[in-house]
């Protein structure tokens, strides 16, 4: 559908913008991996290693906070480079 030919190489600015968008798309997947990770800790292993609620809580809240921090950075970047209302979107959507 896209009749306009896109240049092979983008300018530095728009290249950066696209990578920020990639990061924004990637972040939830990273979050899923990190969040689901404790599910792999079996209760037996936890008992042996003494990985109790406190440790898990420490892990979960650390990951949580890190994800929030990354979301802050990314949303700032996204807002600065591409205001959403203009509808300037990068690559074609799935379809």
């Amino acid at each position, binding site marked *: *559908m896209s009749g306009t030919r896109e240049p092979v190489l983008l300018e530095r600015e728009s290249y950066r913008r696209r990578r920020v*968008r990639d990061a*924004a*798309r990637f*972040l*939830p*997947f990273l*979050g*899923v991996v990190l*969040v*689901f990770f*404790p*599910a*792999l*800790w*079996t*209760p037996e292993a*936890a*008992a042996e290693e003494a*990985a*109790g*609620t*406190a*440790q*898990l*809580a420490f892990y*979960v*809240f650390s990951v*949580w*906070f890190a*994800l*929030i*921090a*990354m*979301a*802050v950075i*990314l*949303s700032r970047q*996204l*807002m600065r480079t591409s*205001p*959403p*209302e203009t*509808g300037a*979107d990068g690559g*074609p*959507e*799935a*379809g």
Partner: protein
Amino acid sequence: MLSFNLLVAVCLSYVAFLFAVAFWADRRAARGQIGWLRSPLVYTLSLSIYCTAWTFYGAVGNAARSGLEFVTIYLGPTLVMIGWWALLRKLVRIGRTQRITSIADLISSRYGKSNLLGVLVTVLAVIGVTPYIALQLQSVTLAFAVFAENSATVGSGLPGFADVKTTALWVAGGLAVFTLIFGTRSLDANERHHGIVIAIAVEAVVKLVALVAVGAFVVWGIAGGTGEIVRMIEASPIAQWEVSGSRWITLTFLSAAAFLTLPRMFQVLVVENAHERHLATASWAFPLYLFALSLFVVPIAVVGLATLPEGANPDMFVLTVPLEHGRNGLAMLSFLGGFSSATSMVIVAALAVATMVSNHVVVPLWLSVRAGGASVSGDVRTLVLRARRVSIGAVLLLGYLYYRVSGGGAALASIGLISFAGVAQVLPAMLGGLFWRGGTRVGAALGVTIGTGVWLYTLFLPSFGVNAAMSVSFLSEGPWGIGWLRPGALFGIHGMDPVVHAVFWSITLNALAYFLGSLVSFPRPLERLQGAEFVNVHRYGTSLRGWSATAAEAEDLLIMAQRILGAEESQALFQSEARRQGKEGFLPDTSPEFIERLERELAGSVGAATAHAMVGQITGDVAVSVEELMRVADETAQIMEYSSQLEAKSAELTRTAGQLREANTKLQQLSVQKDAFLSQISHELRTPMTSIRSFSEILRDGDTLGPEERTKFSSVIHDEAQRLTRLLDGLLDLTVLESGRVTLNLQEMRLSDVIERAVDAARPRMSGLTILREGDDPKIVLRTDADRLAQVFINLIANAGKYCDAPDPQLRVKVRNGAGHVRVDFVDNGAGVPRQAQNVIFEKFSRLSDTRAAGGAGLGLAICREIMARLGGSIVYLPGQGGAAFRVTLPVAQAADAA
């Protein structure tokens, strides 16, 4: 101790404060001073209705029972929010461009504005939300009960309020009033509920402050610092990590799904969203809110377990821990936090579900009953508002009844997750609709139906308890003893956690049915159009438009729009459209763009399916625009084909015209030639006739003429008569040859004999011409008309004799034998024919100069050409031979060649 009366008083004043805030916000918005009423902060806070009383009180209870499992309920939404760029942004964009009013409207609109899907999702939402509302009522009444109990010990309880059932009724009634007042003021979802949003934002702050305050009190007031609280956690019954992996993953997934599909979440996330930009802030701010909310849950649970007496309800730890330690103010704050959680959730949920019920059930029913159409009679606006009000009341009443019937016991405690699992059945159709153009209405309906069925069967109905909806034997042995259909172990797979089991099977089968149903069915045109608009919402600035064949009456549309949007708004809309079209007044042309715009505006009030149906009633067939579009596309294809045919024909005509022009030119030339011929022939005939007449007159009148003169004149007459005869002979000859009536006397002849005969015959007219013959092969035999051929040769030789201006005229006759033909060249050593004359020498009466036309009529070469054409050969002028040169080409008789 805190008196119950004081609690009621504080509670009522808090409610009054909320009413005031909501009123103030609505007034402010009505004056157009929206400002920070629609700021990213307010948006983020409004999302906090995700955290209901179930999470406010229940999270601590959950933590006290199963440790950290409660965080999964917050981690799911966190993942959704940080992935806003890919999913929520698209959802919000679609919600805005399509004027989506609810989750049911989204699904219905995506799949071709299908009302069937709207009804399905609405029913699912009602089933899922009703127990949830009951749960909120329960937690509020439980909280009241805690205080009532507490104050009862000091004997100041108020009997009327102590009855928890009555409390629930009061709460439900109060919430209904609040929702009615602020939820149904305006009809258009796009105008948004400023009052409600501000109120729930305030409540969000209260919730957070309350929980953080209790948490801080617990950590620093009771435990004595962070180090102490960690030690207490490690010493507590929940110190060990006992969360099952499957539950961890399932609950995270479920909460993420519910965050997207819960009607109330959709309402605040999409419908109440004022600006996509707000999502960017909410993407981290809302997870941060959840983070702060859950930070103190485990400490509160641990401290509650440690300090409260055995058997205390852990769900009420948030209240009972401060009460136990005599912090009445903190307990009051905590109560208000829980109260806020419950009320904000109930308000928005009731509003969202009521919108769905009125848009997808009541109005379509009313429309179908009134087949006459929306423009005939009745005020739709009033109807929709009334339907919405009644729906709000009905939803709250249902919740209350559910609470009463279920008895408000422990059965309700698990309803939160059950409700999540129910509404999550919309997820496959929703995500598929956003990212996959191939999803169809049939697939979505199948998926939602099957998923809901499995959910009802495996989770919802068993949740009522044994012998409530399903008998003991049904649960343990399956229906009619079919083991693999047991609600708790579908397909004979045992040992799964009930929630994991139900979520796994319902979502898997749902997604599978959606996918397969979409693959095998074929979408209607409107579905495909909507699918393209949804999936490519970022790509299309403006939407694809249908083409409506029937011109709807603008006035009818205005009448209908006034009934839904209100008179002023619709008139403004119509006027602005008319102005955009460059017209005066209120009635614009009913262009497809306008119809679409109007439909969107109406969809903002009554939902896409209903708006489409209503506009369709006026403009004609419901699906007319797209069907027509398809037909037009077919017609266009036909027209294009026809036009290409026309083009081909036109090219052919151009060619023919060119040919005709050529023919015309030729005819004109022929006409000119004919005229020239006639004038030539008259001239040619007149010259000898004139001399014959003059000399014969002299002879007749001249008695004085001597015999010598007489003889001379007679011979002149004779010569001229002969010339005349020759001319007429030639003309006759030419006419016969040209008309093709000549009969050829074909016989086999040696070429050398023919040339010999011609030279002999021409000898009297050669006037000193020397003839040199070359390559004269006697073996060359021709099958031809020898007399005619000789006539050609004689003519050529005579011409050479006549016109060769060399002092010693010579004519070389060269014979060359070729493949299948023989060439005879006649080349003299004269000046030759001038270049410009070479083209015309074969024409009739063409002579190089009249002066030397001794006895010639200018027909000789023309006759030669005709003869050669009859004989199957040709005669051409051969330039560049050093004199006049003619080449005669003759076909050779093959059979005679060997002789």
